[in-house]
């Protein structure tokens, strides 16, 4: 069981619905965000290209954040979810410094917070809040070990990339290009 997410950059319009849906679903305090939207513009007018990506924690297979956690608060749950156990976190910030995607942040309540792939929703058979709300339906989520899941299907038929694969983290957030 290995959960992953794919974002179709051809359909994403950068509306940031994923950001505010995650904020309300997960009670993320105002001023913080677990996911964000990046816009990349290449070229010179009028030969231009635009890529828009909705980014978040990649729930990496080779996650440096889990490796460096001194208390074991950062751990991997079944299915590949990288989760922080709040009561074990001492707020040392090592995991924050260790993430090349800058996906983690110190929550005002003291522990370190980040995207959880809405594990609490997945357990109930629902999609993560960002995937469920995206108006362009450009986000796919599911079990990579299940060939009929939306994300397996879309990764079979489309070209995709991950961010900074050379960092060696083996991210599980794919961008369809």
């Amino acid at each position, binding site marked *: 069981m290995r959960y992953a997410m794919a974002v179709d950059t051809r359909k994403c319009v950068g509306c940031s619905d994923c950001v505010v849906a995650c904020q309300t679903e997960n009670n993320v305090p105002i001023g913080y965000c677990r996911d964000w939207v990046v816009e990349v513009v290449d070229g010179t007018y009028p030969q231009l290209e635009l890529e828009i990506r909705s980014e978040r924690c990649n729930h990496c297979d080779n996650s440096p954040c889990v490796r460096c956690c001194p208390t074991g608060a950062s751990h991997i749950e079944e299915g590949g979810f990288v989760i922080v156990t709040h009561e074990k976190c001492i707020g040392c910030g090592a995991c924050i410094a260790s993430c090349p995607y800058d996906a983690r942040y110190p929550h005002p309540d003291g522990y370190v917070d980040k995207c959880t792939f809405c594990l609490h929703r997945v357990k109930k058979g629902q999609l993560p809040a960002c995937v469920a709300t995206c108006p362009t*339906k450009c986000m796919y989520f599911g079990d990579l070990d299940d060939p009929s899941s939306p994300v397996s299907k879309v990764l079979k038929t489309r070209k995709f990339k991950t961010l900074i694969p050379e960092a060696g983290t083996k991210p599980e957030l794919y961008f369809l290009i």
Partner: protein
Amino acid sequence: MGSRRQFLKTSALGLGGLSIGLSAFKYVSDFSSLEKGKAELKINLSRTPTYCEICFWKCAGWVYKREDGSIWKITGNDEDQHSNGRFCPRGTGGVGTYNDSDRLKTPLIRTGERGEHKFREASWEEALDLIAEKMKSIASVHGPESVALLNHGSGGKYFGDLLKAYGSTNIAAPSYAQCRGPREVAFINTFGEAVESPERTDIRDTRCLVLIGSHIGENMHNGQVQEMSDAIDKGATIITVDPRFSVVASKSKFWLPIKPATDLALLLSWINVLVTENWIDKDYVEKNTYGYDLLKDHVKSMTPEWAYGITGIHPDIIRKTAKEMYNASPAVIVHPGRHVTWYGDDTQRLRTVAILNAILGSWGRRGGFYNPATFAVPTYPHPPFPTPKTTWRDAFPDQFHLADESVSSKICDATIPSEVRNFSFKAWIVYGTNLIMTFPDQSKTIEAIKHLDLMVVIDTMPMEITSWADVVLPECTYLERYDSIRTGPHRKPAIALRMPAFEPKNNTKPAYWMAREIGVRLGLAQFFPFEKLEDYLDWQLKKLGSSLEEMQRIGVKTFEREADDLYFQPGEHHEFSTPTGKIELYSTAFLDEGFDPLPVYTAHPEPPSGFYRLNYGRAPMHTFSRTSNNPNLNDLMDENTLWVNPKVAKEWGLKKAQEIWLKNQDGKISNFPIKVRITERIRWDSVYMVHGFGHATKQLSRTYGKGISDTEMITNVMLDPIMGGTGMRGNFVTFLTEKPEEVAS
């Protein structure tokens, strides 16, 4: 002719005219068994249904609360055609409208001068008594027709009913003359029907979507963005015509980086290519249209080569894109856009769009424009409205006959006394629209306001317009009230319920209550027979075969169409609501009014040296100026930036995120500075900013002073003579890198 159009329009908007006639038999029996019903408010604590008020799309959804009763999240209703269960960022961020600490809390009565924002808190009694008293005295001296309602939002309906009962039909939505008006008039005078809201575009099944300046994706009309995504999945071609590299331009097969203000030439040259090559839906054109030969003759000289010189778009591209449209026909949409008040010849430009659609055969066809169905919700019987002696049209006797709705900006103009007119408006009721940021030429708006005897503003937030009010009435947000049953036109007729998830916060009240209370004080209680709106809704819903209780459970109820007429059936004959009964490529009504029956290109003024055309647009996380203070949405975008081409930035020595002030061609200087975004996405002859920032009201604590308001820089208004639209894209700005002394602090 005009009254037939009006009749169809009214019933299409479902305001019950048709149903009153049909329910004539039931009238007597209902009146005798006057059972208003006590609808019990059963608020399901886990989720309550609502439809969003943040923009006009009115997506239906659910409001969720946490265990402690605080608001948790808002999601879409899966049964809703408008949202398909997915809300846009503003709808999702609606939790912020409830939580915003800067909300208006209690009625306010002005103590200082208008504009100073000096108020004292007052009770509802005092505020409403004051308004009623003034309305009575204005009616006795100047007539009730001198009171106008300017509105945008669900509650405006009740103030509209109030005004109609009071004796005035001067009710205008700025979204007409400041936004979609030209396209409605253009389409009505071509197809006999307007484009409507939500737009009747069949994007999800289209094979070619042509956008003239439309920036779907940055403008977040939920259904349109969703359907465009479906279209992309199905491999549809998108052709975007825009001087700016918009998000949708980046997803288009063809992006035509057109020179600003020259779109009409491109559109005419497309018609030229289509008629020359006979790339038209011949059958459709022959059976349904009028004036094809006149059209063909008219566009003879408007070749792609001619257009190239004007627009900068290469003739090959013009021909290629025309072919794309023809290949997709009739599943092609030349999108009419929505905010189309650009240069003053906008109705004619939209006529060209309508003509293109007509000859490609897309009107009433799958993948083109579908025929929307709506719901006629019964109105509770009341005495007939009095007939007003005058309307705003009497202030402009020879103009705007083709405007099918009231022209808000002309009501504003007619508030400034003039020898040419024998009457002017004396009172404004402003509901849910921040006129200071809506009407271009702010100085004229302010001058008009100064001449009013009464200015009432109803709003949820202390927007700029509230500073100018005599009385501010704080409305509770859509999350705290009932409102009319939503019957928006769509593929299938459907109704949606808005019910409160919370009690009104602080001392706020819903618009229905306010309007009724004023009505009671004016002796118009019989026009508001239900004290509680939910009882009225229950009465209406029971007449439709549902009930308040059912709608509270399900939120949305969709019905089947009465006939299989979503699209025109092949072989069917259609009568269009035009003078000739056909789709008028050549507009006979325009001819009668002295306007060009076929559109003609005119060049528009270009920016002088050192100036750049001010273009503005939307961001998907904001709706005009009304969301910039919303904590959740402000978190996403808290200010606008000025997009400047790198070549221009280099010339001026501008650095990334540098703060500059703007000065326009009339010498108007911006209140606040704006940060520069140096980007290749904008042409060197224009600059771009998102509308809705630059708030000058300190009470909007989060957004005060952030960015620039494009409205304040729009002092040159290009009037559309056909329907009174205010063209706003004829303003040019230059940069001031040092803080100017004349800037108001």
